[in-house]
């Protein structure tokens, strides 16, 4: 369904981010992007025996970094299978993530989960469910536990617009509102009318569903990391203060490789210089890069406001790319677990 952002958030003066905070948002997005590009490299290299699918977070970095950097370290996230962004943003060990995606012994889940089920409870990333409607209800469960434990932490449900096609999406929203559970519903709306998969909802706006259940809602442009971040901070404050759940919707335009079956770079390998050298943007997906790439847009914005220099941007991107390459190189050396470990249950 079409559900454009209901206007951008005008930042209050006290909400203005300092340079350090802005660079943290950019670096977080770059970490996610370079990680996902690393996954594509793994999938394109036959010797690594990559067998997974491709549900990459490219194009959603603004939503993930914006939301995750508004969280505290004790907060708990549950995500869908498009989970790499939240994992990286929460600070999961990227070497172990790469290893898990390859089904290796050093993987976060010892090779039992793969990309679809990576979890890292040590960094407040509770679980991934690869079933549509899974993460939203599990996050309500974590929120229930936090409420019983009288914790100040909150739970975050990461999900897409498709979750509201599922009955359990409605059930979870209802229960959270009914019992005033401390959960942030972070909906990434990348619906594309007429394209499958995409949500098909009779409601004119996604937010009409939680609004009908007496829940505050807001929609922001998911390609604008600062807008997401400021809205997420407000939402997190609301939830943490004990007022109950909050539904925050980040509207996204799908990256052209969003549902790719075969590993590819439909918008090329990220080139940070496109932030200032737009003439170089080319190819059949140039429009996406020009209009929707949240990293390019944010780098351009920071340059335009003289908040950073081109050299600073280049150096930051280089640093992230190099560290990611090193972690990937370590992960591919991890062995496959012994096959008979499959029978081991956890008692």
């Amino acid at each position, binding site marked *: 369904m079409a559900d454009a952002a209901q206007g951008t958030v005008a930042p209050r003066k006290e909400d203005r981010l300092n340079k350090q905070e802005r660079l943290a948002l950019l670096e977080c997005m770059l970490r996610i992007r370079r990680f996902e590009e690393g996954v594509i490299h793994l999938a394109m290299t036959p010797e690594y025996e990559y067998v997974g699918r491709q549900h990459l977070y490219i194009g959603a970095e603004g939503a993930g970094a914006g939301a995750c950097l508004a969280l505290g370290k004790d907060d708990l996230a549950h995500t869908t299978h498009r989970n790499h962004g939240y994992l990286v943003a929460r600070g999961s060990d990227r070497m172990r993530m790469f290893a898990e995606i390859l089904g290796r012994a050093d993987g*976060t889940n010892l090779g039992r989960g793969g990309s679809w089920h990576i979890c890292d409870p040590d960094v407040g990333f509770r*679980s991934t469910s690869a079933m549509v409607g899974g993460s939203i209800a*599990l996050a309500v*469960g974590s929120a229930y536990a936090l409420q019983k434990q009288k914790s100040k932490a909150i739970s975050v449900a990461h999900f897409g617009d498709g979750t509201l096609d599922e009955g359990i999406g409605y059930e979870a929203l209802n229960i959270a509102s009914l019992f005033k559970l401390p959960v942030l519903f972070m909906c990434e709306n990348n619906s594309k009318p007429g394209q499958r998969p995409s949500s098909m909802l009779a409601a004119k706006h996604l937010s009409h569903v939680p609004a009908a259940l007496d829940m505050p809602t807001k929609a922001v442009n998911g390609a604008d990391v600062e807008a997401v971040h400021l809205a997420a901070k407000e939402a997190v404050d609301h939830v943490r203060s004990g007022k109950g759940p909050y539904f925050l919707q980040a509207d996204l335009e799908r990256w052209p490789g969003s549902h790719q079956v075969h590993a590819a770079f439909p918008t090329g390998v990220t080139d940070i210089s496109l932030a200032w050298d737009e003439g170089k943007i080319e190819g059949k997906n140039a429009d996406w890069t020009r209009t929707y790439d949240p990293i390019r847009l944010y780098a351009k914005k920071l340059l335009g406001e003289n908040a950073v220099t081109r050299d600073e941007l280049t150096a930051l991107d280089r640093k992230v790319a190099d560290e990611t390459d090193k972690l990937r190189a370590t992960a591919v050396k991890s062995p496959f677990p012994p096959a008979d470990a499959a029978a081991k249950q*956890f008692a």
Partner: protein
Amino acid sequence: MTEMNFAEAMIDGLCVALDSDPSVSIIGRGISGHGAEAAADKRLAPYGDRVLDPPTSEAAVAMLALGASMSGLRMFLHFGTGVFAFEAWNQVVNEAANARYMSGGRLKSPVTFCMFHGLRNGGGPQHSASSQAMYANSPGLEVVMPASPADAKGLALTAIRSDNATVMLVHPSLLSLRADVPAGDYAVPFGQAAVRREGRDVTIVAFSRQVTEALKAAEILAKEGIDAEVLDPRTLVPLDEASILASVRKTGRLVVADETPVHYGCASEIAALVAEKGFGSLKAPVARVARPHTPVPFSPGMEAFLTPDAAKIADAVRRTLAA
């Protein structure tokens, strides 16, 4: 020891769990079945918001319980009639069953899904399911079926304290069964069968309400000079294979009684176990006493026709001995 009925014993177990561990939390009413809710409510009332009466949203409530269990609570959820858990099928067999394994053991999932199963006089096609084989065929779940008040309490306590997802199936006709129940805190370990009656001539493996029927059958058969052993595995997963095989080694004959529809059911699994690992002990073919593979009709006589009972078990034993 105190004499109490099955429902009271279960509630007693829940109270012990709540008293001994502040992280225990309960969802669901009707734990003691129709007619006894008031007594259950009264005993659970002092626990306040540790006992939640949820909206009719089985799928989300199952996930609430699972998510909360991942985040530090020990959850006991009662669905009421087991068919309602079908509304949460994915959540139990695909989310809860896999949660711990697929995390590489990094997550725990101490959640118990309790429900009523079985033929219960007029349940009709949609309220009579015995779905234990379905759960037992979903790796990652522990599956338990108490047949006595003492086990109802002891297995509930073990289930609540287990770090794995557990499905507990209770037959509603057992709720009024009275027997001695140990006082205080104790646990019935999973994977340990109980010999309910010792015998030499035939082994009857029975689950849940069929344990009561098997014991009645053994009394009938005793009058005919047939000495039946009745074995109650108590837990389907894990299954105490050794005790079943040892009993069949002694008697040489096996009858299995369970309410699961006969095709691909629990009785079939026990029969396959003995065929595979105890074939040399068998003096006669194994007999299964289970429901025919058909939906359940409402009309009383028709329902009774499908229901495994003492007479059917005794008949099966006689056939086995005649073979």
